[in-house]
């Protein structure tokens, strides 16, 4: 496979869904068949998406890597590049290079119970892991999925959560800081869900993704429930310019988030994320 170092490839949007007012999902097909066939990602990795004339942004891969189909990304429009990407329609093209980074600990999680805790759009990178595990249901024990959002309108993939819930030994708990008339789930932040969550103390792997304050609030509760800190994994976000360990922007202490992460074992990153300014 060609090392994805320097140049983006052309990718075409094959489908597009507006999930909420500012969140949309796109499916992308690499135009060059040779690259399409050799491209392989791993849950938790990301691509650099390039909007012509504007720039590149890191975006997590949502699709299951074993899906032969197009690559899926879910994006919140927040600034220059993401607002421009939002305006693209089916048939439009963009640049894509990747996949980059180290993803979720699928090996470490095999044969164990898995707790997935995500907040806001933090759910995007864990979705590919959930899909991966559910396709190989027998390889994993109890799967507990906790997802928090700020406002009930921000919840995406509502149907998918409801489908997942029906699967054997899968618990899905949803919370919103602000509820609403259409909100049958919990009100409060994601950590309130932990009281109801099934978290077997033995052999449990926890994966977390979302705003750092949310993750930092959830971790002590996992530790209280006797989850081994070595089995806690976090996905970290920092400003990224290059994705390949050169530009220096994504550093957290000695770590380059773009290459050493974005997923880290909690003890490896704990000292740094607990401190302001790293």
């Amino acid at each position, binding site marked *: 496979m060609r090392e994805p170092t320097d140049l*983006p490839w052309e990718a075409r949007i094959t489908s597009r869904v507006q999930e909420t007012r500012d969140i949309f999902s796109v499916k992308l097909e690499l135009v060059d068949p040779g690259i399409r066939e050799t491209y392989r990602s791993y849950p938790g990795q990301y691509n650099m998406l390039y909007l*012509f004339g504007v720039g590149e942004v890191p975006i997590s891969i949502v699709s299951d890597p074993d899906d032969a189909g197009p690559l899926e990304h879910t994006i919140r429009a927040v600034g220059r590049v993401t607002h421009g990407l939002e305006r693209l329609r089916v048939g439009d093209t963009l640049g894509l290079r990747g996949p980059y980074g180290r993803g979720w600990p699928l090996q470490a999680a095999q044969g164990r119970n898995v707790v997935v805790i995500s907040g806001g759009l933090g759910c995007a990178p864990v979705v590919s892991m959930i899909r991966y595990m559910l396709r190989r249901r027998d390889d994993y024990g109890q799967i507990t999925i906790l997802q928090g959002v700020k406002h009930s309108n921000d919840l995406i993939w509502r149907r998918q959560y409801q489908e997942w819930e029906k699967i054997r030994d899968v618990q899905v708990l949803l919370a919103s800081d602000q509820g609403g008339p259409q909100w049958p789930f919990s009100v409060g932040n994601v950590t309130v869900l932990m009281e109801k969550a099934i978290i077997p103390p033995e052999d449990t792997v926890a994966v977390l993704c979302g705003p750092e304050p949310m993750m930092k609030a959830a971790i002590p509760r996992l530790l209280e429930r006797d989850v081994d800190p070595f089995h806690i994994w976090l996905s970290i976000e920092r400003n990224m310019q290059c994705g*390949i360990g050169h*530009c220096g*922007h994504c550093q957290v202490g*000695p770590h380059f988030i773009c290459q050493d992460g974005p997923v880290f074992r909690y003890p490896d990153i704990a000292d740094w994320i607990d401190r*302001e300014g790293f």
Partner: protein
Amino acid sequence: MDEHSVFLPRAEATRLLQALKGAGFDRILGPVAREGTLLFQPVKRWEELPMGIRDVQQPGSYRLQQQEGSRCFAWANGAQALKPLTFTPREIIWRAQRSVEGHLSFESAQESPEPTAVVGVRACDLAALDLQERHFMHGRFPDPWFRKRREALFLVGVSCSHPADTCFCASTGDGPAITRGHDLGMAELDEGYLLWAGTQAGRTLLERLDLDEATASQRRAVEKETHQATVTQSRTLPGRHLKQGLYERLQAGHWADVGERCLSCGNCTAVCPTCFCHMEMDEPALNGGTSEHLRQWSSCFNAEHSFMGHFVVRSDTRLRYRQWLTHKLGSWHEQYGRSGCVGCGRCITWCPVGIDITAEAHALLQEAPDA
């Protein structure tokens, strides 16, 4: 300097430049006094080098003085090391084309760099280049733009005889003598130059020059000057491995003290020969059909560096200075196996308010570790 050093008389020094040209280096750069400092510029004759020039460097100040004498390297360093030659301040890395039908294609903007010889490279500059090679060339994604430029270079190092007040390469172990990273090493005496090879390319060049061996007394004279250049350095870092000491003092009060003085201007990172941070951006052409993707030096002293949309990770100068120092003297050890500081002193000289990395490091390590 080694036992095979040869001697190039001062009157014949231009022969070195001619030999470099003969070896295929169409572009030969040497230090030239310009813009109030010494910059690497194209040179053809030895007389263009800064003869009799001395530099006076102090925290926040740099001056050149013209003195008597024929020495061309009786000064320490200018504002730039080799960094701009291999890691360009601003460059196009690729171009995107969009066809009328909306197809995108991408092409690398790599040009073939001219074979370039640089005369008068300092030991600290060579050590810094080695660090930049570790970063750009020896990681998982070797940088093609950096590598091509690096491979086009032939480096003639010169041992320092006159370090500046701001130099502390002896303390970091990176100078003042040329010992590694050079194709050719050089030491200056009043009567001329001792030359020695560091690579096969350097040996071939020396053979072309066909010079006499240096005498024992010339070698002793160089040794004496090198010793003198080592002992005159008054600045030091408090040890070569400061990672632990700094990591244990992330809450030290002194960070706020230096944060008060620092202007967050980023001059230190621009002149630092090891800093590698850069940002990327696009410049679309007016015709709408092409866009150039550029990279440009940036600095951890800018808010942009840690911008996360809804917040900035390092929102104040205290946190940015702490990032710079703990990276430079601390986490570089974990990333590249050594400190990121080669003791060139440039960040001290070119800081508008004269913040001194050695003084700050000493002050920090004098504080008690965090509770």
